[in-house]
């Protein structure tokens, strides 16, 4: 068999391996619902959720609210990651800056950012700004920590080699420190991206006039559980796709890295 064909089979095999457990769970769930072991008023059946999902997919409601949530999640994540990388580099490069910022990072790292949503509402009101701000704060810290680690872990001898080949201090940052930190930065961005959906939706559930979070909350309040699950499913699909896209991008960017020695993540 040719390598190309074997690769296709490997990939298909991986898809089957990944989907099979979920398929079994859904089938069992449907079976118990069909024989009446599950009260559909408490937990809708997969079939009911499928119908609701189809209904939502053909109407504007889910699309419009999903776009609002995506805008907030990606906007906040992009801003948070960009600032996180900048702050991480500054901490790694300046002892004075590190001395000031490091305690702040440690103190706020494990704080759930959704806890300060009420405060954000007080400051900026309900709407895009509040949700983007919450996502921004959530995405900031993982990228700061990962960038700092990646930059400070750069071996001296690599920096010295570049300097003796004519790199200025500024060029060392772009040519050496950032590429060296890239695997860590991408890890931070992946964590941040995962959190961004969670926080955007949580913020919308707490207070919002639009977004998937509000939609899920509304369906739940109205007892439309099939529609609630359908909305949740649509979020899961989008978040999964975003994560896979990022992984694909990472493997493209890190073809040089030891983590890419065959296999998939």
């Amino acid at each position, binding site marked *: 068999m040719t390598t190309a064909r074997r690769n296709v089979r490997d990939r298909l095999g991986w898809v089957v391996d990944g989907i099979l457990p979920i398929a079994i769970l859904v089938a069992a769930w449907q079976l118990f619902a069909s024989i009446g072991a599950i009260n559909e008023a408490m937990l809708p059946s997969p079939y009911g959720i499928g119908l609701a999902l189809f209904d939502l997919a053909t109407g504007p409601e889910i699309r419009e609210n999903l776009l609002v949530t995506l805008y907030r999640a990606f906007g906040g994540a992009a801003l948070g990651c960009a600032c996180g990388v900048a702050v991480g580099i500054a901490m790694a490069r300046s002892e004075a800056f590190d001395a000031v910022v490091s305690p702040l990072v440690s103190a706020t790292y494990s704080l759930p950012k959704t806890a300060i949503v009420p405060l954000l509402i007080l400051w900026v009101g309900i709407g895009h700004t509040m949700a983007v701000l919450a996502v921004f704060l959530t995405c900031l810290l993982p990228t700061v920590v990962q960038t700092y680690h990646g930059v400070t872990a750069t071996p001296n*001898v*690599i920096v*010295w080699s570049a300097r*003796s080949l*004519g790199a200025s201090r500024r060029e060392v940052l772009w040519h050496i420190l950032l590429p*060296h930190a890239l695997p860590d930065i991408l890890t931070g961005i992946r964590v941040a991206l995962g959190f961004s959906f969670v926080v955007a939706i949580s913020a919308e559930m707490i207070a919002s006039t639009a977004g998937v979070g509000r939609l899920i909350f509304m369906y739940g309040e109205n007892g439309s559980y099939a529609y609630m699950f359908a909305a949740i499913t649509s979020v899961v699909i989008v978040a999964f796709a975003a994560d896979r896209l990022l992984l694909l991008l990472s493997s493209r960017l890190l073809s*040089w*890295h030891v983590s890419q020695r065959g296999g998939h993540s």
Partner: protein
Amino acid sequence: MMQEKISLKDVSKAYDTRSTEVLALDRINLSVADGEFVALVGPSGCGKSTLLYIVGGFLDAEGEVLVNGAPIDGPGVDRGVVFQEYALFPWMTVRKNIAYGPRQRGMTDADCNNLAARLIKLIGLDGFADRYPRELSGGMKQRVAIARMLAGDPEVFLLDEPLGALDAQTREIMQDELLRIWLNNKKTVIMVTHDVVEAVFLASRICVMSARPGRIVKEFRVQLDRGRSREEIMLSDEFNRIRNDVWLAVREQALLMPKQ
């Protein structure tokens, strides 16, 4: 007297540890002439690598370091360097690693590629130009590190145990290559090594350093006819006489080291 290339005047280096200050180098004076190959040998922990890093401009020190009569200001393209741990740029292919120095000097892409291709041929890595460092063996990486330094076209080669991580066979092959490169280019070389045989085989002068604090305690001139084969050189009486003398001098220093 040949022109002086590198001059160290009363160079001292102290490290701060948590409790005390440790003197790593104590008033080193060393003058290296243009075209000389100086080997620094001594017991481990004597500060020979530290001395090399100071000449490279990577570490600050007390005293004066002059290159071509002018005090150094940090690292410079006049001093190329090869480290024991290769220090290749992992995200660059072999070709890009080697072309980094020329590109920094403003050489055009076409010229960079030509120069890289020539050096890749010189180090016998044809067909590996587009490989990443992680795909190479230790010996291949070390050859790329040497080629990258050569591409920078420095006046002085600073070699920090460049062959230390290689197996015995690869090591001898690389020594032959280094010797050939030095004889052909007439560059100034300072090499740190813990291998006395390597030092005698390659260097025109050997400086033996003392146990900490590092000082240069003995110097040996090596005047061998390098035109001969490795076998002829290494089996000659003069080679072995110098090797014995240097080995004894290093051994004396090693015995003075405090037991750890």
